[in-house]
């Protein structure tokens, strides 16, 4: 009984941490075509942008990962080392490609600014690992994962965990 309550409490805490975040309306949300690319594989990163008419996003890739192109107009993209800047001009989605190294893991981090709305913040970190293998190589990104970028998957996972914890209790 005690075990059940502890599990349930744990899941509830996770849920409380995740759900408000997922609903907080961060203007820029990142999603990956895969978080576990194969060695040398090119995968897609999509930035979903809401409510930023004129602004910018700067993405920082983990060491070894390389920017490999984008559908964003050339004159609105700037690459410098592991960083890529996008000028946002009424865009709702920007997709770019990243080539994975032979091995390595780390976080893709980002920052956004809304020039007209005069606000700014971080795009939540997204973890990538070649073939799902964690390495000691540190991410190039310096920023901790932003709360607001908790993925819908995380929220779903927390709900599922709560559900299963509840089922376990009834047995």
């Amino acid at each position, binding site marked *: 009984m005690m075990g059940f309550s502890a599990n349930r409490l744990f899941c509830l805490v996770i849920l409380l941490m995740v759900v408000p975040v997922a609903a907080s309306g961060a203007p820029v949300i990142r999603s990956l075509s895969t978080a576990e690319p194969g060695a040398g594989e090119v995968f897609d990163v999509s930035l979903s942008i809401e409510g930023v*008419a*004129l*602004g*910018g996003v*700067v993405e920082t890739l983990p060491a070894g990962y390389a920017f490999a192109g984008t559908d964003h*107009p050339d*004159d*609105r*993209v*700037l690459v*410098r*080392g592991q*960083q890529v*800047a996008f*000028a*946002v*001009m009424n865009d709702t989605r920007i997709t770019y490609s990243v080539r994975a190294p032979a091995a390595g893991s780390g976080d893709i981090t980002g*920052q956004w*600014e809304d*020039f*007209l709305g*005069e606000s700014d913040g971080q795009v939540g970190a997204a973890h990538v690992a070649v073939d799902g293998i964690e390495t000691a190589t540190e991410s190039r990104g310096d920023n901790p994962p932003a709360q607001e970028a908790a993925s819908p998957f995380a929220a779903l996972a927390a709900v599922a965990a709560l559900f299963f914890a509840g089922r376990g209790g009834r047995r």
Partner: protein
Amino acid sequence: MNPRHLLALLLLLLLAVPASASPGDGIPGDADGDGVLTRAEYASAALTYLDAAYMGGAGELDRDDIRDAAWVSARWDGKPREITDSTGRTVTLYRPLRRVVTFSGESLETLRSLGFDMEKIVAVDKYTAEKSTFFPECREKANVGSIWSPDMEKVLILRPDTVILYATISTAACDDIQRRLEASSPGIRVLRFDCFKPATYTGEIRTIASIVDEPERGEEFASFYGSTMDRIREGTAGIPDDEKTRVYFEYWFDYTTVAASAGYNEKTELAGGKNPFATGTTEYPVVDPEAIIVADPQVVVKLAGQGLAVGGYGGHDPEALDAIRSALLDRPGWSRISAVKDGRVHVIHSDILGGAQHFIGTAYLAKWFYPDRFADLDPHAIHQRYLTGFQGIDFDLASQGTFVYP
């Protein structure tokens, strides 16, 4: 070194270090300097800024620059905006207003009506600073004195991009402030508006709305203001001169009235009143007490509110206005005046008659002068809508403030 010289030197140093480009330097990001910020120039400017801010690049655009460029690109179609202020001077705006000093509470109030971000007001005049109930957001802002005694050092230290002065009153003092600002801060934008005159206020609302790029809000407010003033004008149109209500309007000071050149007379006449003392040679002539009795006004209006002492937004104090009225009724010989006999002696606070809220006070005058013609006019409702819908302040007229009595 003499402390004053040291202060002056410090000031010069502060002015010599450009915190950001001058508002008169052109549109930020306009790379070819042709006066138009194209989409391509804006995109390039955005990347230059992001590079410098996050990627170790060496671009010169700072955050205010790119925000201003975005504003000009999105709101002004990439072009500078030309406006003509109430002195008739054309001013070219290359950037939006970001750091504003106002020496005019009326202009500040109009900016607030138009939804301007009050965070961008960096300093206000001393009278505005005193009105902490009406301008609660200005309590902590810098106080730059009055147009007659401006604290120019403080103004310059605040590095405003825009300073707002009066257009047609106290012109010598305002001209002097403008000259000193333009001499010490080339490119600073000095805008001059009155925002208290019925004849020009509608145009000023639209001009200021254009400056802050709130055209829809400007039209809404101009329409609200204009509908009240038009209703008053229409309601008094066609009244023969000899049938107009005779009004004795008394200024703050006893036996001091208003002549034709005074703003209060303009509002009295707009409301259909006939001022027997309009021919006075000064703006606020002192009248012989006997002459008032001889004129036999049908309505007496007494102005309250000198020095923020009584009523208005400063406090709910109907007893104070009642005391002012009672003192009038007790004046020698006044029992013979028609206005006294008919119970048509009113007290009105200058908060709603002298400044940007003159339309509210004028509506009260019209209703007092012609109760039948203006039976459907509700100045109290107009006032509340103004405060709630345009000023955006939490002020309930049912329990706060005292503006008219009875």
